[in-house]
């Protein structure tokens, strides 16, 4: 499964059609690409081009109308609902555009939530959550609730939470969309550092050119198809 060239994520001719009454929206129209372990990759494209839909397919939040998605070599269409739930818990980390956190839990409790679901021991949860919160620059704010944190701080808690579960892939859907550019830069620094230090694969979507250019590989989507695969070295 994990020979050096096996992709960690693979999409093959993925389509997604949403039906709204009589009208059909074709969100993805045969999207194919592969991502190798450790990549730091941006999905970009105009609004409505299918970025969120593509991330939802990879994250097992939604199923393709046709085509296949593999994560770590496993065909998601062959997994039961329970297996998909476990896949999300153990192999995928999510960061959404905003309001990612459980409002009644503190930063620390949010960061360790997924580890708790994984059944990790208290000591390990504590060590890793505190370490990651420090890593994302939130030392001393562990006991704040989300409404006592700024937007950027909330996103950093979400990143710590996504990484804490030791996933194969961290998916971030427009993680900087609600942040000012300085805060967005800092968030990208954090993601980059975690990618470098932990080796976790990052796939994030954005339509902000400055954020996009921090990626080492950029997939340009247009109308639900891959328009350009841009690699920087």
């Amino acid at each position: 499964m994990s020979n050096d060239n096996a992709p960690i994520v693979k999409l093959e001719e993925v389509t997604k059609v949403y039906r709204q009454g009589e009208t059909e929206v074709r969100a993805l129209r045969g999207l194919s690409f592969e991502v190798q372990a450790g990549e730091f990759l941006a999905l970009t494209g105009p609004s409505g081009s299918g970025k969120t839909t593509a991330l939802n397919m990879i994250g097992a939040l939604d199923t393709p109308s046709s085509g296949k998605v593999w994560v770590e070599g496993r065909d998601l269409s062959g997994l039961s609902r329970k297996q998909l739930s476990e896949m999300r818990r153990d192999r995928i980390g999510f960061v959404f555009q905003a309001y990612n956190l459980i409002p009644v839990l503190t930063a620390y409790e949010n960061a360790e939530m997924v580890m708790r679901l994984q059944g990790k021991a208290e000591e390990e949860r504590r060590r890793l959550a505190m370490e990651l919160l420090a890593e994302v620059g939130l030392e001393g704010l562990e006991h704040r609730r989300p409404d006592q944190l700024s937007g950027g701080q909330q996103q950093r808690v979400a990143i710590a939470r996504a990484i804490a579960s030791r996933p194969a892939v961290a998916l971030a859907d427009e993680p900087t969309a609600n942040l000012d550019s300085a805060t967005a830069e800092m968030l990208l620094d954090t993601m980059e550092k975690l990618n470098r230090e932990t080796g976790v694969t990052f796939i994030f979507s954005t339509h902000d050119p400055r954020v996009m250019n921090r990626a080492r590989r950029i997939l340009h989507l247009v109308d639900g198809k891959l328009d350009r695969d841009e690699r920087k070295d």
Partner: protein
Amino acid sequence: MANRSKLATLAWRNIWRNRRRTAITLFGIAFGVLFAVLVTGLGDASYGQMIDYAAKMGGGHVSVQHEDYRETPSLDQTVRADDALTASIETDPEVLHALPRVSGATMLATAANSYGAFFMAIDPSREDESTTAFLGAISEGRMLEGPDDKGIVLGATLAENLDVELDKKVVLTMTDKSGEIVSGLTRVRGIVKTGAPSLDGGLALLSIGHARELLGYAPDESTQIAIFVRDHRDSAQVAARIRGQLQAPSVALSWEESSPELAGFIAMKMGSNWIMQVFIMVLMAAGIFNTLFVSVMERLREFGIMAALGFSRLQLFALVMWESVWIAIFGLVAAAAFTGPLYYYLNTKGIDYSAMVGEGAEVAGVALLEPVLYVDIYFVHVLAIAGIVVVATLAAGLYPAWRAGRVPPADAIRLV
């Protein structure tokens, strides 16, 4: 397990997110419980009072009598009521007293008038207000003294009608065991005034020895043994136990069997109370359902994110069920705080309703000697009400919890 306790914590914090809504829900539960406890407690106390009162008026909670006495309550339907039997009945831990009595119809005559009356012959040395309701209602003169007192105590209206005063003569006439008409002379020792027309106008109290002598009974012969139990709800069981000690033609009847009209009246009242309470509980459950359902619908995106993090359907279901559990528990706490003081007041001070009903009120042939209603609920009824609250709250949570587990994450997360 760590995981489950975190769901409980999460649920606990969630219910306090909308304090006002939760407070209204808890208030609804508290109000429903208050209503249920007061209505049930009023019923338990007043039906208990009526049953005890009926017992004191006649045959006790359990009555040993001739098998034909219920059909034809005549003075020739007698049973053996010796001391050995009453003492043996009194060894039953639920039994307080087992008292021989003779009761029946008599004709009372004075120089002025004659009236029919119901007489009850007791051993005054063995009875007190807990076994004979009107012993405390002597308004003139005194009670009979001892089992062979030759005097009579009359209801106030009856005495007035007969135009007698204390120490005046009254002639008693009744039909004895063998069907002969017998008469005896007696003197008025005391007058009772209960406020209940049927008693004041028609009751005569004799000593049991005197009655036996007049009727030609053996010294251990009676028309019944009146048995008083600690808790009237045990009457049927006690009656069943006593049956084993009796020989035909003696039978033991519980108060339900000897006063079927009263039993029917109470059963009907309790039935209509329950219907009303079920209705209140259904309203309460609908309120809780609404709270939980609205709170789930408001959090669809949050449940979607939780599903994305790896919460299973079952865990999301359990989370909302935990919210119901907390509402049930906290609702009961609120209910206790709300109901406790009022219950305490009504349990100790009672409601004096004498002004409402006036003098001489009777319900189902039972006079209400004490026009104060106390609320005194049976503990099993408290448990039943608490149980219904918990079941109703959990039932109200089922559908919202199911919905929370089935939130489609991709769609829910798009909702911002």
